[in-house]
């Protein structure tokens, strides 16, 4: 996968001399750097611009689940926003007030907040990921954020980091002390869906090769069939991707695989039609879900999940498969059980971490968390 390096970096003065800004200066020698007091919201969209801001909000957020559907209880580590991979279905297209790539330059504050949160509940396992508002590794070749965040988690007894990506930018992960606390995760789709709806992302073969290399480096892996897209040949398409996955990856290295059918806010439909006129994804058989989002009619979703889960079980019956934001009845129809039968979805995932990664949070409160190692 090729990345288009930002040509213009706009730094807020408060973070202009931060470690992250200095790393960007080193890795983007051809870019112009300008310092402003404050990056304005609602700027014109340009894929060549990278904004580095002094983030004033909470770095750790809860996954935006709703009570009508089972949520995994994962927490989001908010490191930046936007993505230039420009997948047809991406929710980030609707974030019109901050359309440009953006990173948060005050990483020290982020590490402080993270340390505090992990220390507050030392006996709980914290599953934390960075891929909600941006791709976890898209800017890593320039920001090298993984080089500080992965070793940070290695030293936390009760934290697991999940980096979710559609890239193959794993160069910085090589040789890091990850301590078995980082999961590198890829979203997967059939090759034809990747070509049509995610054309700027790494191909499925590139993603699987990157996963294989990470596995060699001792990283645990996860995969997300999300969003699953309905199209004429979906069965053969997903079957082929699953075949490739288990051909190339040892299932025992996979901590979990999630399944989630395409869902989107109704407002996104017009945006997709305007920005991706050749995409056909919005013309599926959608209904309005209990959370207000458009979802495929439940029978279609249940059929997807049952089909894919059955193929995964053939490869590894013990592998944790879960549904992202689905109702109890869809769980039962497609997987034959409800998360409640197994202590809830959060518990299912915690157990998967324990089984596959051998991580169990210490019983006694931990009084000290190591200081983060910031990029230099």
């Amino acid at each position, binding site marked *: 996968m090729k990345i288009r390096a930002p040509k213009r970096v706009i730094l807020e003065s408060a973070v202009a001399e931060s470690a992250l800004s200095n790393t960007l200066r080193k890795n983007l020698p051809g870019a112009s750097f300008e310092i402003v007091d404050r990056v304005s919201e609602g700027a014109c969209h340009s894929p060549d611009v990278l904004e580095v801001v002094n983030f004033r909000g909470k770095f750790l957020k809860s996954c935006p689940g709703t009570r009508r559907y089972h949520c995994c209880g994962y927490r989001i580590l908010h490191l930046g926003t936007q993505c230039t991979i420009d997948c047809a279905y991406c929710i980030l297209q609707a974030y019109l007030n901050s359309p440009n790539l953006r990173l948060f330059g005050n990483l020290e504050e982020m590490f402080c907040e993270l340390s505090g949160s992990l220390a507050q509940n030392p006996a709980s396992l914290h599953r934390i990921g960075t891929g909600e508002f941006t791709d976890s590794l898209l800017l890593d070749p320039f920001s090298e954020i993984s080089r500080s965040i992965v070793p940070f988690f290695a030293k936390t007894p009760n934290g697991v980091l999940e980096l979710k990506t559609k890239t193959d930018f794993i160069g910085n992960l090589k040789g890091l002390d990850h301590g078995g606390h980082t999961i590198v995760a890829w979203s997967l789709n059939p090759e034809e869906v990747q070509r049509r709806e995610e054309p700027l992302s790494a191909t499925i073969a590139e993603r699987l090769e990157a996963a294989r290399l990470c596995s060699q480096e001792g990283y645990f892996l996860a995969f997300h069939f999300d969003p699953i897209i309905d199209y004429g040949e979906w069965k053969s398409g997903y079957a082929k991707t699953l075949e490739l996955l288990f051909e190339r990856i040892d299932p025992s290295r996979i901590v979990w695989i999630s399944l989630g059918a395409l869902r989107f806010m109704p407002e996104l439909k017009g945006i997709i039609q305007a920005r991706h006129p050749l995409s*056909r994804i919005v013309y599926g058989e959608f209904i309005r879900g*209990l959370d207000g989002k458009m*979802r495929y009619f439940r029978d279609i979703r249940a059929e997807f999940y049952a089909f894919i889960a059955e193929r995964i079980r053939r490869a590894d019956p013990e592998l944790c498969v879960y549904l992202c934001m689905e*109702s109890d009845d869809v769980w039962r129809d497609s997987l034959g059980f409800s998360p409640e039968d197994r202590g809830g979805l959060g518990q299912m995932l915690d157990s998967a971490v324990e089984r596959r990664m051998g991580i169990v949070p210490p019983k006694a409160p931990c009084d000290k968390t190591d200081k983060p190692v910031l990029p230099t």
Partner: protein
Amino acid sequence: MDCRFVAVKDIDFTDRSFEIGKFSSSTGVRESLERFGIFDPVWLLEKPGGYTVVDGFKRVGWAKENGGQDLLCRIFAQGSDPGRVFSQRMEKKIFEGEINPAEKAQIIAILARLFGLEEIPGLLLASLKASNRREVLCKWALVAQKGTPMLDALGSGEVCERAALDIADWDPGSSDSVLSLLRALRCSASIQVEIIERINEIAIREDITRSDVLEMERVRKIMSSQESNHREKTRALREYLSALRNPRLVSRRKEVRQEIEALGLPSGARIVFPEAFEGGGWQMELSFSGSEELRRIFRTIEPLVSSGQLDAVLGKR
């Protein structure tokens, strides 16, 4: 702007570049002209050898038909900027009264021609209650270009603004067909938009033209039915398009309805399934006129519920 008498023969009736057709009944104007003649001076733009009508096409037409010789007119001097002339005409029109959507489309098309889409004065767009977004203005201009059938339908209120904009970029065959269909159905604005959206999405998903959808045998049968009135036709068409757009949901609904019917619920009891079968939310509605009837309903329902006959229906979501 001068005000003076102009000979009717000097007016160029073929130049209609400033015309904004009303596309709705103008009987009232004609009756008024018959009764009182011309109140307000016609607006003309002087040009070599004559005059172009800027405002008052019906009035000059009436004067000519009735053998009028001279008319008191307001004259824009030769060489006046057409954009400025049209803007003045617009201001007058906007403050004269309601502008119908057919006029709105034509006005925007002319403004776009004179000023360019990006430069249309904001005041005029605001007065027209038109968005200043380029794509919307383009669609309005396309609506005007569709010509008489479209403007007629808009001016008469048979087709709503949103529906007209939605079909503005359709190929002429498809837009003409859907216009005739909407005129025949005489349905509300929201239903017009729903029908258009369904036709469009079915065509895109099935990779066929919109005309292909409109030419489907079932659609033709619904529209040509002699037995159904326009409301029944609208209902039948919506059901058919809905089944084409959401085949699995519609067939599941039908299946569950049949299963509920087969349960043989007593009169006064009704099972309502959740919208789109999403989550729980099944309901049983009981209607009764007194306690005895309620007891009767309960007695009949109780064995049904205990026997587990409902499980098959409820489990199959």
